[in-house]
Structures are given as C-alpha cells and as structure tokens.
C-alpha cells in the first residue's frame, strides 16, 4: 500500500462522470429554481408595462381612475366604487371572522379536551382549508343570496369571504397561542386565576401580535379573492356601494370584467386596477411584517 506514489493514490477511483453528473444536476435544479423567479419578474414587468402604456397611449389619468366609478365607456371608467367596496368587505370580514376565528382557536388550544369532538373539529378545519373558494361562493349564493333572500349584496359577499378565511385565521391564531410558554399560564393559574382570567390577562396579550399578523395575512387573501364574489353576484355594478346592503363590485371582480372585455383600453384599465390591488396587498404585508418585527423581541 505504501508503495503507492502521490500520483496514483486515487487512480482506481474515476469520479469525472460523477462530478459531471452532480454539476449537470445542479445546473438543472438551479434553472428550475429560477423559473419561478423569472415568471414573477415577467408578471410584474407585464403589469408595469401595461400600466405605462395605459397611462401614456390610452391617456388613463390616475387621479380620475381613483375618483371615478366604473362605466360602460372605457374613457370614463374608474376604480373608486370597487376600492370602496373592497374596503367595506374587509371591514365586514374582520367583524365576521376575527372574533369567531380567534374564539375557536382559544377553545381548541386552551379548553378543548382531547376527545373525538375535538379531533373532528381539527380534521374538519384541515379539510375546510382545502375547499375551493368558488364552493364558498356557491354556499353564499344558495344560503344567503337566495336562501334567506338577501339578494346579491355586499354583506352576502362578506359572509362568503368570512367563512373562506376563517380556517386561515383559526390556524394562525392557534400557532400564536401555542407559542406562549406554559410557564406563563401556570404562573397565572397558581395565583388562583381561572382559566378564562388567565387567557384574557396573560395568554391573549402575549399572543396578540401573532394573531394580528395572521389575521392581516388572511384579509390579504380575502381582498384578492374573485370567484366567491362572482358567485354571489358581485358583477356589472359600476357605482359605489352605499352600505353593506347595497349591490356591489369589488376590486378583483372589476378587474375580471375589464380583462374579459375585447377592447385594449379596458385591458389597460385592468392593469391599472391590478397595480392598485397589488399596492393594497403590499401595504398589508408590510404592516404584518412590521407587527411581527415590532413585537418579536418583546416576548
């Protein structure tokens, strides 16, 4: 063995092909990883150029766009009604889904015994998260729009969206509650506080930043949802809704209407609407990130 010289020490091991295989593989998976990034860049680039062309060649005025309601005539069409409707939807969804969602999470994490009913609720939650959003729209259509006779009003859309994001709020709130150390709970219980006093005074305040972050992200999901709103009849309404019982068209449904029009002018209105919608999402994500960072260090 020791008679081997430096040179032929690894002579019996030919790794040229193995390393080439490894490099080829790395090349392929790196290219695949970049595919998603390239598509995202293309998407944003496409929307941005369409916005630019809309502003320059189709003379879309941003101020007019934000202060006018929709119209059959493309040069008069704006986004105000849709923006107001989306904001109203978000407020209603928050009222409908936040308290029930956080309440369910508290029950499941803090109170629920480990029995079949609890396991059923948990399994059902996982299943609800996999139900296509359009099915929530069907539920809204049959149960609220026609069932109780609401008609295609904003409240019906808010209920459909609220039910849709409820599982998301519950799961994120559960995670936030789980992150609160048991020592905190035991400390409170040991002073003679009841379960609820412990939750209200100690657990919930500690979990609140996490719950808020999860709720904002769930609302960001709700504001971009289109299919459930179309199902409950939020379409072809150009004016601003006057309240939760008025008919409406929200940002995504308005964008859908415009994108479906054959006229190029409408296509560029859709691009402009998408920029507004994405700006909303961007701001909501920033707030969520801010809350997460702001309170992360304090716990």
């Amino acid at each position: 063995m020791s008679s081997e010289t430096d040179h032929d020490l690894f002579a019996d091991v030919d790794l040229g092909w193995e390393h080439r295989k490894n490099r080829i593989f790395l090349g392929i998976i790196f290219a695949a990883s970049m595919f998603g990034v390239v598509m995202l860049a293309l998407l944003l680039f496409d929307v941005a150029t369409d916005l630019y062309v809309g502003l320059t060649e189709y003379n879309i005025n941003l101020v007019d766009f934000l202060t006018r309601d929709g119209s059959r005539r493309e040069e008069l069409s704006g986004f105000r009604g849709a923006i107001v409707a989306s904001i109203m939807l978000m407020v209603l969804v928050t009222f409908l889904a936040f308290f029930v969602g956080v309440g369910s999470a508290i029950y499941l994490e803090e109170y629920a015994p480990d029995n079949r009913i609890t396991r059923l609720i948990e399994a059902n939650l996982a299943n609800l998260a996999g139900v296509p959003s359009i099915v929530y729209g069907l539920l809204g259509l049959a149960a609220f729009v026609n069932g109780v006779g609401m008609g295609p009003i904003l409240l019906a859309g808010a209920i459909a969206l609220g039910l849709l994001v409820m599982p998301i709020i519950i799961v994120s709130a559960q995670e936030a509650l789980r992150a609160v150390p048991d020592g905190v709970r035991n400390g409170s219980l040991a002073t003679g506080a009841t379960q609820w006093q412990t939750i209200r005074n100690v657990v919930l305040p500690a979990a609140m930043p996490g719950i808020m972050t999860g709720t904002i992200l769930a609302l960001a999901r709700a504001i971009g949802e289109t299919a459930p709103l179309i199902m409950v009849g939020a379409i072809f309404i150009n004016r601003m809704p006057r309240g939760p019982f008025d008919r409406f068209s929200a940002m995504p449904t308005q964008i859908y209407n415009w994108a479906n029009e054959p006229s190029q002018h409408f296509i560029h209105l859709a691009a402009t609407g998408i920029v507004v919608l994405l700006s909303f999402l961007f701001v909501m994500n920033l707030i969520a990130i801010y809350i997460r960072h702001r309170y992360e260090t304090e716990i």
Partner: protein
Amino acid sequence: MSTDVTDGSGPGIRGDGAVGADNATDRRVRRLLFGCAVITVLTTLAIFFVLIDNAASYFFGAKLTEMLLGASVERTVKFTEFFTGTRWAPDHATPGHGVLPIVFGTLAITVGAAFVSIPIGTATAIYLSEYSSKGVRSKLKPTLEILAGIPTIVYGYFAIAFINPMIVAPIAETVFDINMGRYSLLSGMLVVGIMTIPMVSSISEDAMSAVPDDLRNGAYALGATKFDVSTRIVLPASISGVFASYILAVSRAIGETMAVTLAAGMQPQITANPFAEIMTMTAYMVKMARGTTAVGTVEYQSLFAVGLLLFVMTLSMNLLNDWFKRRFQEEYR
C-alpha cells in the same frame, strides 16, 4: 391545559362566593368559545347540505327539502346522461347534460399544470434544501412566497395579456401554423402550473429539511456526491411530505377558477389540441353566475350539480392526503 378547578374540597377551598362567580364566568366563556369552534363544523355541513339539496333538484326536479314535504320526484336529468354524455349545454335550447367535456377541461388543466409544477417545484425544493447557500436561500424563499401570495385574478390577467398572446399564440402560429383565439388549454396549463410551484416547493422543502443530517453525513462519509445524497437519501426519506405537496397542488389546480377562466376560456369540448379553447367546471360556474340565471331554472340547478362534483373531487384529494400522511409517516425519529 384544561384543569378543572371546581372540584376543590376541604377547608376553605370550596368554590363559593367570589370564586364561584369567576368559575361561572369561566364556564360561560368556555361554552361560548365552543360555539365558535362548532361554527366551522356547521360550515362544512352547510356546504354539503346546500350542494346536495340544490343538486337534487337538478336530477330529481325537487330539492331534498321539498321532497320531504311531499313534492313529486321525477327524473329530469339521468345520471347516465350526466356522467357519460359528451355534450355540455344545460342552458341551450336543446340542452345537453353530459358533464364529461367540462370534467375533461378540469382534468386536462390539472394534469398539464402538474407537469409544470411538480418537476420544477421538486427541483426548487432540492436546490433550496440541499444546494443553495444561506444567502441565496434567504432571497429565493421570500420571492417564491410572493408568487404564492399573488391573487389568482392577476394570474388570469397574466395569461390573457401575456402568456397567451406572447408565448402560446406565436408558437401555435410559427410552429404548427394554427391561428389561435384569445384562450387556449395550453396557457391554462402553464399559468396554473406556475401558480402551484410555490406550494410544491415550500411543502417539499419543509419535508426535505426535516431529514436529519445524520443520514446525509452517513452518505457523504461513504463518498457520495451531493447528487447521490439528494436523490438517494433525502428524496426517498422525505417522500411522504413531497407526495403530500403534489396532492395539495393537484387539489388546488382542480378548484382553481379565475386563472383558468381567463386563460382557457368557456368552450366545453373534449380535444387533444392544446391550442383550442376549452371550459373547466369552475369556468362553467363563473359563466352561469355572470349570466342572469334565475333561481329554479335548470341552469341554476346545474351550477350545484357541477359544484357538488367539484367538491367531491377536491375532498377526495384531501382525504387521500390525510390517508397518505398517516400511512407513510417518515420512519426516522
């Protein structure tokens, strides 16, 4: 965490007076919160009920509830026609009730999208978990999360304003000499594929990162390359999580609505031509909802028959996922 404090017995520690009132509050709150949790179960039951109740009137001419009140049952649409017919036009003057064309549309989109998202998502997961440096990873992961957070309507716009006219139509014209319309099956497959990449990559990567380093080191010490370790150790060891991500992506593609409606169109047909306009089940539902469909008409009822079928398809995917997770738990501790 549920400790029952009401059973305290012995001198001076019985639950009475102020403590009793606190405990009563605690019990009330507990019941209230339980009620909140039950709402989620009621939602599922309501979905089931609404879909079945309305679909019944499509097939039997009366809702379940109406039947219970004594409405007569007639076979309006036969199951055999529904499941085997190849013409779907419930809203036509001479209606066709064969659901196959729109089931074909949904499945074609789903399979095509899987051909995009599964290889690319899996490769991305391997790159993130095994190859990428910390720096690249900390940029690539949030970028893919942005891809996952973009609303589906924006993807639909991307398809109709970019993918179809700029990518698919030129290929159809230059390579196959086909003149294409605004919609195509292929652009639907592509856009749904792109949308579902982040689901596959992030869930698969979680599964791969959970593989203990012991196993990797064991293989490296035997003179394995990164390629060997990735494909022979990490991928097999994380296969159940990786498969779960595939099932989720497929389930998502089946229920996807806005992107496919804007990308693939509203023409129910069974075709092998990827440049043709097709219609998915969800696109049909959008078409019906956009029209002035009156309650009680066959068109309105068909909405729920299709919805029920869609719900059953995604539900079975979710149940398959549950079963898979239980059956193939990763063996390592």
